[in-house]
């Protein structure tokens, strides 16, 4: 993947060298044509992923994305999962955790409340499926390599993320 470098600032007397043109017209254009992104597709696993407990939890490396941000940029975070609830009036909340320290939806570095916080809520009835399709921007992300963990918490019972026979997807895109 091409690296983004700050475009050259031309000044009077600066020679028009091939390497400068390559810097701006090759590397940066190639970067624009192939923006940093991380896409994970989770399908046909042995079993659905079960979430239990009533505090924020990650689901492991399959639910983690990583992107390199060349300078202050925005990162679009997308989820597309079917979920199935184990109890009636089941409520779950979700958020993205950047680098293990910044909660994107809550916009804070301290862990949000264990219920009623994060980007939003999904709920359902016993054994009824719902869909967790979300788009959210992490705004003005500093330069560097960043990881994003999809975090869940819930009110009670347990939740299955249905990846045994349906496709789940996660995406992070730098813009």
């Amino acid at each position, binding site marked *: 993947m091409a690296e983004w470098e700050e475009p050259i600032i031309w000044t009077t007397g600066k020679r028009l060298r091939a390497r400068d043109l390559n810097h701006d017209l090759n590397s940066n254009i190639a970067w624009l044509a192939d923006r940093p992104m991380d896409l994970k597709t989770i399908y046909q696993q042995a079993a659905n992923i079960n979430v239990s407990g009533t505090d924020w939890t990650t689901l492991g490396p399959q639910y983690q994305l990583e992107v390199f941000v060349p300078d202050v*940029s925005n990162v679009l975070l997308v989820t597309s999962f079917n979920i199935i609830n184990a109890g009636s009036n089941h*409520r779950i909340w979700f958020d993205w955790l950047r680098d293990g320290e910044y909660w994107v939806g809550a916009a804070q570095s301290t862990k949000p409340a264990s219920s009623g916080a994060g980007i*939003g809520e999904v709920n359902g009835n016993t054994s009824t499926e719902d869909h967790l399709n979300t*788009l959210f921007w992490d*705004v003005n992300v500093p330069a560097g390599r960043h990881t994003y963990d999809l975090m869940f918490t819930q009110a009670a019972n347990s939740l299955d993320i249905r990846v045994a026979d349906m496709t789940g997807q996660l995406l992070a895109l730098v813009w």
Partner: protein
Amino acid sequence: MPVTPASVWTTPITWADNTPMDEDTLNEQIGNNLRFLKRGHLKIVRMPAGADITTTSTTMALVDADAAVEMIVEHDTTLFVGCSIPYALNNTSATIIFDLYEVNSGVYLSSFSSTPAANGLYIGRVWTANTGRVFSGLIPAGNVTPGPYKYELHWRVTANTGTIQRASHPVMLWLWGM
């Protein structure tokens, strides 16, 4: 004199044999246009924190003056309007309907006319009263020409009370030209 890096778009020139390759032209045509393409047409608005917003209106109405996103489009592009709207209803039999209204042209995105489609862009309900869901969308707004665009979030309910859960969750709108 170095120019200040800018994220503005300048229509590319057609180079000819004698086109001067002076510093202003190179910076404008290469550096600034590259920076613009990197960031592009993107405006993200996160509504200021505040109390939950509620409605009992059964006719389409503006959610809140802050529930809007605007941007000046600098060149022909395909515009998308995105949103992440956490909402709830206090009755499982009611539905909540959202739409996006472009202020300058006076049209709803659901119908491309001044009258919104009956069920708007999004119609939702909840499994249990007062529990939440999220309307997350990226909706094509069409091929647009340069100029100002402002989209407001409008809503209504079929009955009972609808809530945008601003007190506990973020409300985000964005415009994206691609």
